[in-house]
């Protein structure tokens, strides 16, 4: 898809995430992202809450009561799911499609990046993203999200979050290689008895044409706050314009009709 080498991606293998938040911290440090408030939500150990203008990585903590095998044959316990979420760098990115200024662009690495000096703060990308990733920074009015460490990629470095991850839950590389590796990983987990392991965002036939940042999850996507079947909104744009054209014609016809008989 570009002449500058293969499209890069993130494969986030949540089965080995330990919830240390090193990715969140590394991202903030490298990119100079302002602090986003430390909210104790009384729901879990998550004090970031969600991705936003000032949180480009977000580690979700899901606490589930469920039966777990134990020494005397079984019982109930708690299982923790942890997952480091990030912008999906969609193949068909709604944020990029709807951006009226061209501030959002597809980089030579196949990633989706906001040019902060072009963004005029219209906010259109915010409700367009099917993953609720990009948001407007209240103080400066512009839209912000993960840049895939555009500057580091340019210098031949891996993104800060991937480098900081101590368990290799966040893996960076050419997207093709990552997809192959993820397929092997998910089948191995399933063979070993983790039947609920599944990939999310890896399928190029999905509604966003496949994500540049995809995941291995241990439960339904919505449990992690991810939409189960996201669709790029511009897929339906032609139909919306057709409806608008029909409405515009009806308006013109209606206006003409009220003059019927009043000609003098």
């Amino acid at each position, binding site marked *: 898809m570009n002449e500058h080498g293969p499209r890069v991606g993130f494969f986030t293998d949540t089965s080995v995430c330990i919830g240390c938040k090193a990715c969140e911290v590394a991202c903030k440090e490298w990119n100079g992202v302002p602090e986003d408030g430390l909210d104790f939500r009384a729901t879990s150990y998550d004090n970031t809450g969600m991705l936003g203008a000032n949180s480009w990585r977000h580690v979700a903590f899901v606490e589930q009561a469920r039966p777990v095998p134990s020494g005397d044959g079984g019982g109930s316990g708690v299982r923790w799911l942890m997952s480091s979420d990030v912008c999906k760098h969609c193949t068909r990115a709604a944020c990029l499609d*709807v951006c009226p200024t061209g501030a959002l662009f597809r980089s030579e690495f196949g990633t989706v990046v906001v040019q902060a000096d072009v963004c005029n703060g219209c906010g259109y990308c915010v*409700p367009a993203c*099917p993953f609720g990733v990009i948001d407007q920074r209240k103080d400066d009015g512009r839209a912000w999200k993960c840049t895939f460490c555009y500057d580091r990629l340019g210098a031949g470095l891996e993104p800060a979050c991937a480098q900081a991850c101590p368990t290799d839950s966040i893996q960076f590389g050419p997207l093709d290689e990552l997809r192959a590796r993820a397929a092997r990983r998910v089948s191995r987990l399933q063979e070993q008895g983790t039947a609920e392991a599944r990939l999310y965002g890896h399928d190029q036939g999905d509604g966003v044409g496949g994500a540049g940042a995809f995941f291995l999850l241990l439960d339904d996507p919505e449990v992690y706050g991810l939409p189960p079947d996201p669709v790029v*909104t511009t897929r339906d744009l032609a139909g919306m314009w057709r409806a608008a054209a029909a409405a515009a014609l009806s308006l013109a016809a209606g206006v003409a009709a009220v003059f019927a008989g009043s000609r003098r």
Partner: protein
Amino acid sequence: MVPDAEVRSYYDQPVLKAPVWRWPIPAYFFAGGLAGASATLALAARVAGNDRLARRALLNSAGAVLVSPVLLVEDLGRPGRFANMLRVLKPTSPMNTGAWLLAAMGPAAVGAAASELTGVARGPGRALECASGALGPLLATYTAVLVSDTAVPAWHEAGRELPFVFASGAAASAGAAAVLLTPGPEAAPARRLALFAALAELAGTRIMERRLGPEAGAPYGGGGRAARLSRWAAALTAGGAALMAAGRRRRTLEVAGAATLLAGAAVERFAVVQAGTESALEPRATVAPQRRRLSGAARPGARGQLGAGAQPGAGAQRGEETRPSPA
């Protein structure tokens, strides 16, 4: 329909980000609609030889089109960069298309009105009048595409109906505004337009809310802010139309009715925008239809129907496997 209890989420947090648009955006939807439909009304009046009505409608259009960019710039995070929208031509972005539309419509309507008022350059003035009259219906309806082209269920799923709601609201506004400025028999077509369009707006809004269904349309039901705004809009539109109909020979009644009708169209835009916010913040509205679509599609990879429209598989039930209860 999958019962709510079965829809899982991350601690009930939203999946989507709520729109960040403040009051100037729905106000602009109203002003743009008024400007567009008024220009078309002016052109039709001119063609019919009703110059008095044409003049008033043209002035309304020019006034509303002058307010529009002010509202748009007011809402930008970086107002100084408004012109960045006009540095590219981007058909995938209805906001970009709309900026160009407004950039063409504004000078046309204002130029036509200036020529009308001053009597200068009547030939070019008439040409501008034609141009603005032709662009008007698009200016009145593209804003529906703008909001539908998002991931917000209450907006996206209304993609087919919303343009008609906005078009009829715009026509009602244009008719009512022309009646406000034009006493007497010349306003008869504007009066008819206001009444018919008000009825169409009432019907269109109900159809849209019904077709959205209980998930995407949730903000319009119940006692939330969008539902209250929507009920106010309907009451004002119906009341305004009734007053106008009753006030055919009583100018005060008619003026009150026209003003009420304008208020109804404006409040309807605020209702639609508010519904989007509430819809985005409700994770079930996003998750439940997608979950049904997935269970309808059975095999992974079997849902590559890009461009096929967003209709979910008809009410397929999930539950082919037992899942652990939500956290």
